[in-house]
């Protein structure tokens, strides 16, 4: 290629815009074949990749002597062996008009989370329908998820037209049915194209076999569809990622303009704190800018010295986001363990992380029928409409108005896995209208009157490890020392406050949540609280700890081995559990997650109850609580 020609190609390549799209279809819809066809016919494949493909087609192929184009996209060894797509693959190709990033997503329900991963960064969806089968439950599921994730441009490719003799009636019937469904879901103006991915009809080139179809080919649709960019139209938002301080004289806030634009002199507010200042400089290594657009990564210097940290957001002063500590959102659950209302998760929104609980699952959506059904938990790949409560008021926008500042992920505290994705619908007004009643007599005053520092002694361990026995002994000793105490005991609480709860994981979580709240109230009353519950899950103990101030929560792990507890079996429960008549019994068929760093660890197989009690009291003295 001549240099001048190369420069011309580069100039054109530079000016191209980019379209990120997702393809969804079911196991046999021919989705991978379709992408393979796009790559193959747009000459995005190179000779050695074709040689590789020929080898793979011989080893794994399902198309006889022809190249199996699906193998281009199924990248993992397991995928090629099983002939299914498991995870999202990202593919790249370009035409003279546009550059494309394709997220090829698995269609099977068990991989819904992977499809949602692909959809979250796409602006257009190509949904495949098998002409022989018509609309299937998965077509509804894919369309629902696409609309839920806020993708408004949908192209329905009716595939395998060759196997239906390229009949117009087949295509029209599917289009009519789909249009009706799309209207119900709020997908505006879907576009339809009849194709055969295997034979290449209407994928890149218009087909000679379907003269009744006069519209553009799939690639022509992808090249010309205008995708409106919500981020450009939305108000200015910049979540601060990093405080840039090379020396004493420079203090800038680095981050990406996730929506809107900002110019020198613009008034911006730091949320949630609420300080307002003006933009003094927009710094980049290529020189200062006068204006930064949506998606640009910049460093902003403000005119006033105000306190800004990572996690804060700079916003247009006259167009502020919502601020609330409770909101309603759609949650797509991606964890192997179900979502449990009341359990504490980490919530990441923008560049900030919070502690969050789902307080209520309003309903879950049957993704195949779109029915709303009642639910106590959300299992893997389920979608629910939930209320969430956070440990602080946070700034956000509704997802429908701003994909960047209305989306969040949920992270499991123990495994650090990303277990959920959420899209905020609206703030809950009760969060704004219910204020804490200001009370004149506070915790410090009550504690002073009792002459003590309130705290919680949280005993945790297997059934039979001696929690109740030890808590009783400790309480007696504290009484003798003139301390005001209160003991919350597992069995007693379940006779009253928590008698509506059983022993499923969800109920156990709620059980401990209520006890944590009770303990907090008693601490607020100035008491030294002792709790004796198995409390098997780290997350809930962590939540209880977070309700209190630093130093007020002492986790005491009775690490007595299971064999010893089972041998003691004071209530005959282990025997019943082993016999199978007591399901969900901790240590037998329900897990106990031992504390990683308890304030005190005691093995009652080695130490006597009195020795243990002495150590607990000594620990309180050492920590200057009594």
């Amino acid at each position, binding site marked *: *290629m*001549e*240099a001048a*020609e*190369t*420069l011309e190609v*580069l100039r054109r390549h*530079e000016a191209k*815009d*980019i379209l990120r799209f997702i393809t969804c279809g079911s196991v046999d819809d021919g989705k991978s074949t379709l992408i393979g066809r796009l790559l193959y016919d747009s000459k995005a494949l*190179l*000779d*050695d*990749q074709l040689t590789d493909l020929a080898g793979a087609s011989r080893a794994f192929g399902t198309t006889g002597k022809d190249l199996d184009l699906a193998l281009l996209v199924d*990248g*993992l*060894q*397991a995928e090629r062996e099983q002939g299914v797509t*498991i*995870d*999202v*693959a*990202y*593919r*790249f190709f*370009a035409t003279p008009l546009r*550059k494309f990033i394709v997220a090829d997503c698995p269609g099977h329900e068990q991989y819904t*989370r*992977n499809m*949602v*991963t692909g959809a*979250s*960064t796409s602006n257009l969806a190509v949904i495949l329908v098998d002409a022989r089968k018509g609309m299937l439950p998965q077509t509804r599921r894919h369309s629902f998820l696409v609309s839920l994730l806020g993708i408004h441009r949908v192209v329905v490719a009716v595939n395998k037209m060759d196997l239906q003799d390229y009949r117009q009636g087949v295509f029209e019937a599917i289009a009519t049915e789909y249009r009706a469904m799309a209207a119900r879901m709020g997908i505006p103006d879907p576009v339809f194209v009849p194709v055969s991915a295997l034979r290449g009809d209407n994928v890149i080139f218009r087909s000679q076999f379907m003269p009744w179809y006069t519209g553009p080919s799939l690639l022509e649709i992808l090249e010309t569809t205008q995708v409106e960019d919500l981020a*450009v139209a939305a108000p200015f938002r910049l979540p601060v*990622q*990093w405080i*840039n*301080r*090379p020396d004493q004289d420079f203090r800038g806030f*680095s981050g*990406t303009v*996730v929506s809107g634009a900002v110019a020198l002199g613009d008034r911006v507010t730091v949320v949630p704190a609420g300080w307002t200042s003006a933009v003094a400089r927009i*710094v*980049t290594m*290529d020189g200062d800018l006068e204006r930064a*657009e949506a*998606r*640009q*990564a910049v460093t902003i210097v403000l005119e006033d010295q105000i306190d800004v940290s*990572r996690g804060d957001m700079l916003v247009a002063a006259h167009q502020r986001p919502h601020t609330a500590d409770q909101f309603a959102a759609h949650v797509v659950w*991606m964890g192997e363990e179900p979502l449990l209302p009341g359990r504490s998760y980490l919530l*990441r929104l923008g*560049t900030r992380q919070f502690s969050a609980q789902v307080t209520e699952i309003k309903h879950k959506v049957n993704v195949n029928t779109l029915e709303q059904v009642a639910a106590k938990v959300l299992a893997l790949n389920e979608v629910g409409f939930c209320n969430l409560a956070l440990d602080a008021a946070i700034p956000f926008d509704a997802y429908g108005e701003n994909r*960047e500042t209305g*989306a*969040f*992920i949920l992270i499991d505290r123990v495994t*650090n896995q*990303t277990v959920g*994705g959420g899209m905020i619908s609206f703030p809950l007004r009760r969060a704004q209208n219910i204020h804490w009643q200001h009370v004149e007599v506070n915790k410090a005053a009550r504690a002073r009157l009792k002459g003590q520092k309130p705290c919680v002694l949280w005993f945790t361990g297997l059934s039979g490890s001696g929690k109740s026995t030890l808590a009783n002994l400790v309480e007696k000793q504290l009484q003798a020392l003139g301390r005001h105490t209160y003991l919350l005991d597992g069995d007693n609480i379940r006779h009253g406050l928590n008698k509506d709860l059983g022993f499923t994981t969800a109920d156990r979580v709620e059980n401990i949540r209520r006890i944590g709240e009770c303990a907090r109230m008693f601490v607020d009353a100035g008491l030294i609280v002792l709790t004796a519950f198995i409390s098997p899950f780290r997350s809930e103990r962590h939540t209880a700890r977070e309700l209190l101030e630093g130093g007020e929560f002492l986790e005491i792990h009775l690490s007595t081995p299971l064999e010893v507890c089972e041998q003691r079996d004071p209530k005959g429960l282990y025997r019943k559990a082993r016999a199978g008549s007591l399901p969900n019994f901790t240590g037998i068929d329900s897990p106990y997650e031992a504390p990683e760093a308890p304030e005190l660890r005691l093995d009652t197989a080695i130490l006597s109850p009195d020795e243990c009690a002495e150590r607990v009291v000594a620990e309180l003295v050492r920590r200057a609580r009594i």
Partner: protein
Amino acid sequence: MPLTHLQRLEAESIHIMREVVGQCRNPVMLYSIGKDSAVMLHLALKAFYPSKPPFPLLHVDSTWKFREMIQFRDRRAAELGLELIVHVNQDGVARGIGPFSHGSAVHTDVMKTQALKQALDKFGFDAAFGGARRDEERSRAKERIFSFRSASHAWDPKNQRPELWSLYNGRVGPGESIRVFPLSNWTELDIWQYIYTQNIPVVPLYFAKPRSVVRRDGMLIMADDERLPLMPGETPEMRWVRFRTLGCYPLTGAMESHAQTLPEIIGEMLAARTSERQGRLIDHDQAAAMEAKKREGYF
């Protein structure tokens, strides 16, 4: 004016790098001296300007790199005033591991994969940037931008963390780490175009000139130092060649070319019908070679 795709790629990479620094305790940037590393380093300079990137560079030196690569590496680090950590698997050196004596698979495993794990463990890095791109290879196309590694540095492709929007999850437990690929969405053409428009320095081996090479297994191997054992009938000859990708010299094939400028290189690439990894011996060792190596901790 909407951003061009290169501007968007640049901004996305910068966002990723800043997120790592915001979330992780002790990040490092793997610097392999090639064109992708050159772009990644340039993006890091941009991401933290006017500060310097708040992490060191790490080069895992297999001791078989082209000499010009090492010179380039040391010069760049000095010019930019960045901390450069060079790690060699001394155990492998003591055992005399090399591509000629032990074959490419063993050499790559010991001097690259094991060496990398040693370095990450030694310095306790909890995040490591790599310059890999999804368009390079099939299993890379499946990998997340924040790619979780277990305490033994293993990748589990069937159990990757969902990665939604631009919300990245860099949380790890003790000993675990995240490999981060800020160039995931770049293609080879994007890389060269960016080098050209941003005027980024690259190793001179990418440009053609007469070099001493031998023809072996259909590839042109450069006689970069006296360690290249000649087979019967082989004689090094001077040919106009350049490299499309850089690695250990005995494992990296040259291509015949007269391209001496960036537009000429890009012109050749646009006309070429083979992908860049074809010049790499290590990928052809076994089917799904890259996926297997990555599971064991390779970048």
